[in-house]
């Protein structure tokens, strides 16, 4: 579960590039929110790279 990225709801532009890039289909866009289905996330980080505005980050990157 710790592999799920942090989502900056205010910084997100809802382009859903992350949803389409997730290799395991673990990200959903519903009711204008990005939802991470933790159980299948492999922590590959592709969504973090794909986000054009940096609204996703690996958990821990910000705090430390």
């Amino acid at each position, binding site marked *: 579960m710790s592999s799920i990225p942090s989502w900056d709801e205010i910084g997100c532009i809802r382009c859903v590039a992350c949803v*389409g890039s997730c290799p395991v289909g673990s990200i959903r866009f519903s009711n204008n929110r990005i939802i991470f289905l933790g159980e299948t996330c492999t922590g590959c980080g592709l969504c973090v790279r*794909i986000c054009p505005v940096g609204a996703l980050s690996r958990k821990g990157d910000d705090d430390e």
Partner: protein
Amino acid sequence: MMMNDALEIDCLVIGAGPAGSITAREVARGGWKVLMVEKRPEIGVPVRCGEGISKELLDLIGLERAPSFVSAEMDGAKIISPGGTVLTLGPEIAGPEVGFVIEREMFDQELAKMAARAGAEIWMRAEAISYEDVGDHVVVKIKILSETFTVRARVVVAADGFESLVARWAGIETKIGPRDIDTCIQYEMVGIETDDRFTEFFVGRKYVPGGYIWCFPKGHGIANLGLGMNASMVKEPGEPRSYLDDFIRKNPRFSKGKITEINGGGVSVSLPLEETVADHLVIVGDAARMIDPLTGGGVYNACYAALQAGKTICEALEKDDTSKASLGPYERRWRDRLEMEMVRNYLAKEKLLEVSDETLEKVLSAIAEYDMKEISTEELLKALASKYPEVLKELAGLM
């Protein structure tokens, strides 16, 4: 009114972009009962597109040019090298490939209205949440706000875009790696210096590695300034935006402009899906990975495939057989026209990811100096051979 009993229809279209709306329109015109569902509250919003289309597209889909969605008409395109060499592709060369800069949300809404006028039902804020093939049809659950509806459809059209879930639900492999995805960011800006008859493309690592920056003018000092970048080239989170900001800051034509809109998106720069039909299912547009892997343009291919999908679905419904075999002609119909160019442009994209700015400079300046009669492999080779024969070796396999 809608009731909680299952709704039985001929064709369910998931996603109201151009591919969805055109498929819905064509099937409705055939006299079949069609429902198109869109999860967003407004069709075409937010825009996720550079907003350039070709003139031939409007003829293809039978849409009249209207000021409501056409912002500006282009004469051609300019490609700007890392060193500033400008390769101008005028109307005699670019021809119907260039065309209009549009307001994409208005364009998408026009197409949805055409589908509605043809008889298709449209549900907004309606999200497909499950998909089950039950033998001779498909059962899809649709959620609108807090209510859930059950729809039984003889055929489903997956037009749910780059982030398609429907194809995955039907068991089709849709996974692609970072090298086959571009990440894009775009600003609409006002108060900038544009060339109002030409779209501009800035290519080379100097501007952005593994992609390009575009300027699509809408007139009155307004333009879309956007950037597409191969995901394999991104090193830090948020880098696409940083590259675009840097480009604008360093260019006096753009640095005084004001941003009036920010949008973005993911674009597949891959080969198309190996299979775009299954039992009771047809996949169209970005969901089928039909975007041109070199340019990142997807609207033309999506619309062309949607017309073929509509025709095929009508035939299959007429035969009362929506099995994979019965829907099979769709594959050949869209691939005959689009696939060869997609494969060629995929190879070109692969090559361009490796090419240095020096090589790119030589290629573009050779072409700029050579008086090309048309854009063709032969003409490109002649141009290069006349000036930089050694570069031909480096590009082996591309042409």
